[in-house]
């Protein structure tokens, strides 16, 4: 056992750090770190910078434009990106559809769509969940009926993250209503400009618009946009969800939050002393830090197994559960640390260019809403309850 990074891995970290320092505009990093709203262009800029070095498509093989990183390199790069305040990579195209096309796509589909993911021509949305199909995804009801060279799609998708930016959507649709739930599903690529599509914003509990409902009525989709075989879409869907779960622990994000918590607790005063020196609060922080340290090693253990080619699906579920707990706890403690100054909220202060006077300690404004927003972590990407079902079945044989 050796718990240190190899010299090569450390050299890679230095290289990654230098690249980020050179390519991430400080104004953008400040927006990310300040919890400000990001524009579509902010994400596109960062994607383009990464692609300029072939570092956008981590999950792709080298011959298709990937950087050839192993899991440890990916982990290191993510850590460096988050610590520097880089916008997250929007996963729908590059980390979800990309691997799906590489696995299931026809040569024509690969040739057409993959380059467009890399150069940013397409912004993809994910059309999976429906109002009646959340944890029970296989019960989805959006219908696709074959008519000549087209599928005609009618139904409703929901929780479509940044769907209002998207020009394309990959979508699970029911092509055989008579079959068992999992058996009658197909995977379609849909142009958002097709007549019959309406994108409606969902405002979340923090007052923000990030997710959407997508209404589809008689939307004509060319049959060549079917990925994989008709009625075999569930296999594709499961493959994609597996990719959604890599990096699911979010260790990098938890580390960034832990650092932020320490800064806030050092600056806040309680009884004339720093809050960080208060025994009760220090105990809360220490418990969290111990969980985070252990999770960091747990995550690396799973990653190195993946490197050796023995990744186990249930481990990803365990990491997802613990990762979301730690991240949610961190946002809870940052909120607590601010005391009464967690209350004030100026929505306008999240806009780029706002230069009004803050209320309370610097950076306090978005903190409470970040705590509320982070409740989503244990709900999306397969709720923590679903992850426990997976572990009970796949790992424990219950």
């Amino acid at each position, binding site marked *: 056992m050796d718990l240190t990074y190899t010299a090569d891995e450390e050299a890679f970290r230095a290289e990654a750090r230098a690249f980020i320092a050179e390519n991430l505009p400080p104004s953008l990093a400040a927006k990310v770190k300040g919890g400000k709203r990001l524009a579509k262009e902010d994400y596109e800029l960062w994607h383009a910078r990464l692609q300029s070095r072939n570092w956008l498509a981590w999950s792709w093989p080298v011959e298709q434009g990937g950087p050839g990183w192993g899991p440890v390199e990916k982990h290191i790069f993510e850590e460096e990106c988050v610590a520097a305040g880089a916008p997250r990579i929007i996963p729908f195209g590059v980390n979800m559809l990309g691997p799906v096309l590489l696995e299931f796509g026809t040569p024509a589909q690969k040739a057409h769509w993959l380059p467009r993911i890399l150069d940013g021509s397409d912004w993809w949305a994910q059309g999976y*969940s429906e109002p*009646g199909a*959340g*944890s*029970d995804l296989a*019960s989805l009801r959006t219908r696709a009926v074959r008519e000549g060279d087209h599928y005609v799609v009618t139904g409703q998708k*929901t*929780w479509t993250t940044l769907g209002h930016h998207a020009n394309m959507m990959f979508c699970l649709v029911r092509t055989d209503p008579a079959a068992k739930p999992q058996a009658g599903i197909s995977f379609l690529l849909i142009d958002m400009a097709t007549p019959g599509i309406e994108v409606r914003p*969902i*405002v*979340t*509990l923090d*007052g923000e618009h990030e997710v959407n409902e997508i209404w589809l009525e008689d939307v004509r989709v060319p049959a060549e946009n079917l990925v994989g075989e008709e009625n075999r879409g569930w296999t594709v869907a499961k493959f994609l969800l597996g990719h959604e779960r890599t990096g699911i622990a979010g260790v990098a994000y938890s580390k960034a939050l832990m650092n932020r918590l320490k800064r806030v607790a050092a600056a*806040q*005063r*309680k*009884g*004339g002393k720093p*809050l960080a020196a208060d025994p*009760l*609060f220090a105990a*809360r922080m220490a418990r969290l830090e111990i969980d985070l340290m252990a999770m960091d090693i747990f995550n690396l253990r799973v990653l190195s197994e993946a490197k050796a080619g023995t990744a186990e699906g249930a481990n990803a579920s365990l990491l997802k559960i613990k990762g979301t707990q730690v991240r949610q706890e961190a946002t*809870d403690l940052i*909120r*607590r640390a*601010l*005391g*009464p*100054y*967690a*209350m*004030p*909220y*100026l929505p306008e202060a999240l806009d780029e260019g706002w230069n009004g006077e803050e*209320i*309370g300690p610097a950076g306090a404004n978005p903190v*409470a*809403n970040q*705590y*509320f927003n982070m*409740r*989503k972590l*244990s*709900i*999306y990407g397969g*709720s*923590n*309850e679903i992850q*426990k079902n997976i572990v009970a079945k796949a790992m424990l044989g219950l």
Partner: protein
Amino acid sequence: MHFTLSDERRMLGETAGRFLRERYEMELRHAAAAEPDGFSRTLWAEMAELGLIGALIPPEAGGFGGAGEDIALVFEHLGRGLVVEPFLASGILGAWPLVRAGETALLEQAIAGETLLAFAHGEPEGRYDLAEVSCRADGADADWRLSGRKAVVANGDSADWIVVSARTAGEPGERAGLGLFLVAADAPGLDRRGYGTVEGGRAAELTLAETPARPLGPVGEAYPLIEETVGRGILALAAEAIGLMEVCREMTLDYLKTRQQFGRPLGQFQALQHRMVEMTLEIEQARSAVMLAAGTLEADRSTRERNLAAAKHLTGRVGRLVAEEAIQLHGGIAMTWDYALPHYAKRLVMTDHLLGDTDHHLERFIALGREAGAAA
């Protein structure tokens, strides 16, 4: 011993419940919160008319309630309604020092809902410690000047009169040398910066520069009155939290019974059933702590303060559990603005940032126990 309410209180509860059910719909509530004052003057006047403010004030000061049970009853209903009108600021925190000072004329207007009061005590560096006051008071007799800053003053931007704590002697952290003063909203040297709060309320940052003020009670000895005032606020918030929790529980239970996944209602999954039971049990615990605090609001200081600290600690702890579990058991729908539940959950969680959080009251509970032990 019995736990039944008197007929008068039962009627008061029914009145409040009916009004909030029939008149205070969620859309109206959101509209009220979005008004410049952060609440609806119309609804406030209607609720004053029903006697909901007067129920918080004792008869000798012109009200018809004011006991712990009254406060708990009214605030549980206000919690159920997710009310944004300034009951805490004007009916409890701003009013109690005036009750003690015998300011019946001003109280009469406040009970009628015509005058708004606020209580400016917390300071930017003070966190939740009641003695961390550095705002200064200089003067004599009825003529004083206040200078300093006050933080996150609930409804401080719309209040007509503000009760302000200030130090006439000593250092921040000392209980001696504090005074409570009455400041008019248009007093010279008073600057108010109002803003919305994350759960839908309003608050203000106050800056006082040689602001003229009138003392309430003996100057320099106000700490016990501050503690008493905040204590009534704590009871109000803890009781309100019970109302918030009950709604969270009812909505979640209803959802589990109706939402179908995997071919059956979610409520048929045992793992989720047990979590609902846990939530139910903890709410009963919190409710019991609030009843204890309500019933001992007039008891000796040690008993009263310890029970209040227990109630605020437990409602804070259980409140977070209920808010988080209610969201999680609902799933995505509870993350949406258009659904009522997240607004209850937000209020419930943010209540922990008012008048002392779970940690503050845990420490306070320990300290009060030690004091009582040392005295015995």
